[in-house]
């Protein structure tokens, strides 16, 4: 029996591997977008694909997001499985009409006759010192659009698994890739990637009894760090990584909150009208009698994403999370 060395890999490498494996497994998979070919993507996620599979399978398109997604719709109509890259979160907005008016609802419009298996990769979120329009967290827009699946990995293994699952899905999937985790490393065995799970399952990253931090994507490592720091306060925090925002895993989330009785939702996106409001409402509706305190939100401020020199004040950090945990009416216990 041979053992394969498990080496550290970055999230970006796992994503590249997922694209490569998907392209090798299915000739219908086509990668397209601005700079994805010769350059290999501005984050190098598509590195080497054009060389390996040819420019017809990994295509540098004109610089036009509506055109990229709009032509992908036509390609999917003809039986291909396009994987499009939006390069940066805020660059995807010109494509929103195609996304909302067609991609999300073509299956519905045609009573199931014309499903669109399109994967939309969106590098998102802040923390990399990007200038304006390079750090938005736009997940609420995607979540509010029926017909889309929305996933976001926080680990190297999930980056591979979720992207493979997205490409395999017969429905459109928005894959929100946390930019600041692209270079995060994990022990990961690219020769034996974990089996690809169906989309829609959250996972408990850390067990605890005092309270649940419900989070996803770039905020997962921050919450893990906060949970470690919380031990000094005598708090034993559980961390739930949603992985999939649509569909939402009520089961895993509520099971955790029922155990701990307290919950804080953590994300970079703004608080008002943001994902945390939906999550807090779902938890309150389902777990009200188990809750010892209101569900709190620790989110980005309700401001346009700030310039890089100010972003550290905007992003939810360990201290802000611990402050919220402290506000969970602990005196009730004493």
């Amino acid at each position: 029996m041979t053992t394969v060395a498990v080496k550290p890999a970055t999230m970006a490498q796992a994503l590249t591997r997922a694209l490569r494996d998907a392209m090798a497994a299915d000739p219908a998979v086509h990668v397209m977008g601005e700079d994805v070919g010769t350059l290999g993507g501005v984050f190098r996620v598509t590195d080497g694909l054009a060389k390996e599979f040819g420019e017809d399978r990994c295509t540098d398109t004109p610089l036009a997001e509506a055109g990229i997604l709009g032509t992908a719709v036509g390609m999917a109509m003809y039986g291909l499985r396009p994987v499009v890259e939006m390069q940066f979160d805020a660059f995807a907005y010109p494509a929103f009409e195609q996304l909302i008016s067609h991609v999300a609802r073509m299956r519905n419009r045609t009573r199931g006759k014309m499903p669109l298996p399109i994967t939309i990769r969106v590098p998102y979120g802040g923390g990399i010192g990007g200038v304006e329009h390079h750090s938005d967290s736009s997940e609420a827009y995607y979540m509010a659009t029926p017909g889309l699946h929305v996933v976001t990995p926080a680990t190297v293994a999930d980056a591979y698994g979720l992207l493979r699952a997205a490409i395999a899905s017969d429905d459109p999937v928005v894959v929100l890739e946390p930019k600041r985790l692209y270079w995060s490393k994990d022990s990961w065995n690219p020769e034996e990637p974990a089996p690809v799970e169906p989309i829609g399952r959250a996972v408990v990253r850390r067990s605890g009894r005092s309270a649940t931090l419900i989070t996803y994507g770039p905020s997962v490592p921050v919450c893990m760090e906060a949970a470690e720091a919380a031990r000094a306060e005598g708090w034993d925090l559980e961390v739930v990584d949603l992985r999939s925002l649509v569909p939402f895993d009520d089961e895993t989330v509520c099971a955790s909150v029922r155990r701990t009785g307290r919950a804080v939702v953590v994300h970079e996106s703004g608080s008002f009208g943001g994902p945390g409001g939906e999550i807090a409402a779902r938890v309150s509706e389902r777990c009200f009698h188990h809750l010892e305190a209101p569900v709190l939100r620790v989110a980005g401020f309700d401001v346009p994403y700030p310039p890089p020199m100010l972003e550290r004040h905007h992003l939810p950090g360990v201290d802000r999370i611990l402050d919220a945990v402290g506000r969970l009416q602990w005196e009730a216990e004493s």
Partner: protein
Amino acid sequence: MTVMEQRGAYRPTPPPAWQPRMDPAPLLPDAEPYRVLGTEAAAKADPDLLRTLYAQLVRGRRYNAQATALTKQGRLAVYPSTTGQEACEVAAAMVLQERDWLFPSYRDTLAVVARGVDPVEALTLLRGDWHTGYDPYEHRVAPLCTPLATQLPHAVGLAHAARLKGDDVVALAMVGDGGTSEGDFHEALNFAAVWQAPVVFLVQNNGFAISVPLAKQTAAPSLAHKAVGYGMPGRLVDGNDAAAVHEVLSDAVRHARAGGGPTLVEAITYRVDAHTNADDATRYRGDAEVETWREHDPIELLERELTGRGLLDEAGKQAARDAAEAMAAELRAHMNQDPALDPMDLFTHVYAEPTPQLREQRDQLRAELAAEAETGPEGDTHR
């Protein structure tokens, strides 16, 4: 030595003389819209084709009249008429092979019907019982598209995908004059030209985008002129001359199929009716203008040609009218039946597998329906 002189030492080598990528002249449309009927070119037209076009135009006119009447009877929520534009609608469907694809806008139900889709299914969107009535793959007709110009990139992507697969397929996409102002029009044409995709873009310039006339829509010499900026040929055609539209579109389809890439065709026509039944056209145009266009009616133009050359007699006209009347009667009979709707269909086609959240909502509606079946809708005090 001045700063500028010092900098001069670092001046890069001058760029090579600029060369245009191609000679734009062959791409430019002719100054006058192309015409066949009433010209010498008509003598070369195939009599059988002209007679087929005539029968289709008569049928199309009757279809427009019937659908408009159904709107007045409340059987259709809305109908954007193509009366006066039948030549474009019919020709767009006729120039395509079975394997080709048609990408219609919401106004192009007549083209969809001419392509072979059941008239009742073609009107499903406008009737309100579902968004798309027909199976897009059965006749290779994309769903009627309500947002303007957003179906154009779909046509480009489909044609591109077909070519990648080695299939000999052409996509014809229809858009109105107003739609040419949308960003998706630009992106679709640009992608099509860069990819040399086998696509034909048919702009039906019918004079108005609801109420806004062409002069307020564009400052371009013609909409066909826009083609040259993308690197594809632009053709200008009299959109009421069925023989001319058929010929120009056939040429464009042949050119695309042969690997020549996309063409932009502007057909100059006129929307004789209002935008829809919700529109009052007298607010933005005079009767005199409409009358002028009525004198340039596509059916009369073709009828004059056919009768003048002895290709159509009274019996032939009557046969065309009878066939159209039969279609209208059948359409009327079908549309007067109430559609059978299943409320549970609301959840059936959102995803391949409903999410847990949708399953919950589905159960809720099922329970509501069961309660309604027991007490009757009048039992619901909240109606």
